């Protein structure tokens, strides 16, 4: 029982990270109908920025909002400068541009911050490990039914729930969120009733990248360092989460992320010889395949009707 609870909470905190990246994917997909393959790398860039601010002596409480602002600017700029003009050509061109962006950002991170994991415990570094949002000392545990649960795990989980609550309020009770919904359901009509579609799309991309930045920082905190391949795996789990929840449902993305995180950790924990740490990513592949084959719209997504 203790082991089960421990694995459950580990899964929930990892799943929270997937949920954050998946939320970004879903927000962009709702707006423009594209899958942003650079989502993980945008988040990674912001995570490096947060690390750099930490090196300069800023506490995480200050550097995280700055990192998210950088993310917002990066996402918005990407939409305006790259995605909007190329989307007129073809969906394939958008795909290639996001792949190009993926490659470019990954290179840029390496070029600026070297290809070694940071912070390295060598000389000159102010930080011992990547700053965590929540207390993460070896003694920071809570006792839940006899299982020792990290405060960090609970904190990350609560963070995602709170963030989702805020997004729910945004989408349902503010003018910006309502216009996002309008653009998602019918761009042409939305334009006709006076919604500034371009502005809304720009904001969606910015918002997605900002949430991604939060996810990246949280994951680097769990991982205790930031490196160039940090987000490869996370991205595929997040895509699995978005697929499972439905590509146009933010709630589905959060739930999907949590489910994937828990399944992955339980599977690796209870079948150490068959799945273990190596084949964890196989869980993501299986989920993506099964959902796409059986119910392509996911748990909460709207089914796409195709006209021939």
């Amino acid at each position, binding site marked *: 029982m203790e082991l089960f609870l421990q694995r459950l909470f580990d899964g929930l905190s990892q799943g929270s990270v997937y949920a954050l990246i998946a939320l970004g994917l879903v927000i962009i997909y709702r707006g423009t109908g594209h899958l942003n393959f650079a989502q993980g790398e945008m988040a990674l860039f912001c995570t490096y920025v947060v690390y750099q601010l930490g090196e300069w002596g800023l506490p995480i409480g200050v550097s995280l909002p700055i990192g998210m602002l950088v993310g917002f600017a990066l996402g918005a700029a990407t939409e305006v400068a790259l995605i909007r003009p190329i989307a007129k050509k073809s969906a394939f061109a958008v795909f290639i541009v996001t792949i190009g962006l993926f*490659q470019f950002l990954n290179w840029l991170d390496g070029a600026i911050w070297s290809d070694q994991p940071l912070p390295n415990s060598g000389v000159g570094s102010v930080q011992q490990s990547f700053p965590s949002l929540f207390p993460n000392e070896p003694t920071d545990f809570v006792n839940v039914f006899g299982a020792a649960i990290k405060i960090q795990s609970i904190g990350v989980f609560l963070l995602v729930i709170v963030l989702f609550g805020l997004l729910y309020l945004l989408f349902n009770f503010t003018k910006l969120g309502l216009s996002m919904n309008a653009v998602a359901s019918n761009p042409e009509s939305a334009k006709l009733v006076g919604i500034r579609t371009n502005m809304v799309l720009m904001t969606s991309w910015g918002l997605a990248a900002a949430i991604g930045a939060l996810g990246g920082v949280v994951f680097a905190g769990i991982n205790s360092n930031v490196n160039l391949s940090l987000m490869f795996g996370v991205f595929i789990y997040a895509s699995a989460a978005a697929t499972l929840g439905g590509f146009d449902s933010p709630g589905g993305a959060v739930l999907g992320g949590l489910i994937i995180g828990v399944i992955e950790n339980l599977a690796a924990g209870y079948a150490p010889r068959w799945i273990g740490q190596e084949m964890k990513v196989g869980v993501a592949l299986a989920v993506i395949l099964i959902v796409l084959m059986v119910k392509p719209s996911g748990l909460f997504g709207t089914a796409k009707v195709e006209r021939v």
Partner: protein
Amino acid sequence: MKPIAIRSGSAASWAIRLVCAAILVYLAFWIPTSASNGVIDTCITALTLMAAAMALNLLLGYTGQISIGHSAFFGIGAYTTGILVSRYGWSPFQTFAVAFIVAFVVGALVSLPALRIKGVYLALVTLALALVFPQMMKWPKLVWLTGGARGLDNTGFKFTKQNPTYEIFGWNPWGSLRGENVKPFHYWIAMVIVVIVYLACRGVVKSRAGRSLVAIRDNETAAAVMGVNLASTKALAFGLSAALCSLPGCLSAIRTGNVTPDSTNLTVQGSITFLIVMVVGGAGSLWGPIIGSVLFVFITERTGDWSDPDAIPGVLRPFFSWSNTPPGTGIFSIILIVLMFVAPFGIVGMWRRFQARFVTVVPRPAGTGTIVEPVAAPAEA
């Protein structure tokens, strides 16, 4: 200025073709005989990438099925050769056929979900495949076969000082070009693979099967209505593309003499490299991947030591001296993004537009070929 018109199949068009072919053949022979070992090595890298990108082109450029999973097929080739050579003592040449068949079967299996899953979703599935493959090679259950994270050793040809080259029936074609060195030998294997892959792609593309591939790419529903069998055509495209992609994988195992799950081109990064190389060169054209991979290898080799600011040529130094890593991939991804805006069909597409201003190739008018009288079907009895 009015562009010069050249009739397809005329003497002038054949002369141009012959001159181009002669230059290429001359280059192909000049490199292993006269270039330095470093240059030969770079060329092998380029040829490997070329073959893989051409295989991907068959699937993505012609059939329109997005795959970011070709590193897995490349890896199947590398591991098949590695396992058979190091564990069972096969000759590396024999392993190519096995790798081809294994990759064909796996590729055809991947085509099954592709019957339902389209576009970027297929990209997701194949991306997951690319991530799963190296992990699967590290899987404890398969360590007896794959060697786990350590990988396999001694997967290449065994050369000795006394017998520095490989002979076929006592004849040593490589040594007569330049012996005593394995590099030219690997170069020739790579060259043969590229030629085979090119001819296979060309053969498919210019045949009935190729036309059904393009039909699927342009409009799947219409293709089905016109009588293209989606399931078997997609299975063929996936299988052949995977099988062709495994051949350069075999070469990579032979060339480096070891295979690990993190070798170059076996991870997701490999898939992405194949993809961007193909798109920069020109998706959906036979020459696209060739030009793309030459450009890619040229840029990465040229900028390989640029992490040291002193190695950068003077004019460019202020732009790149801040970079901690070689700027090759960065430059190439910028080229990729810019090309998508100015020339969606890559460098080959750009060249075709440029060339059309000066030379137009007039296709042979229909009905000038040898006329084959249709054989009347025997009347039903």
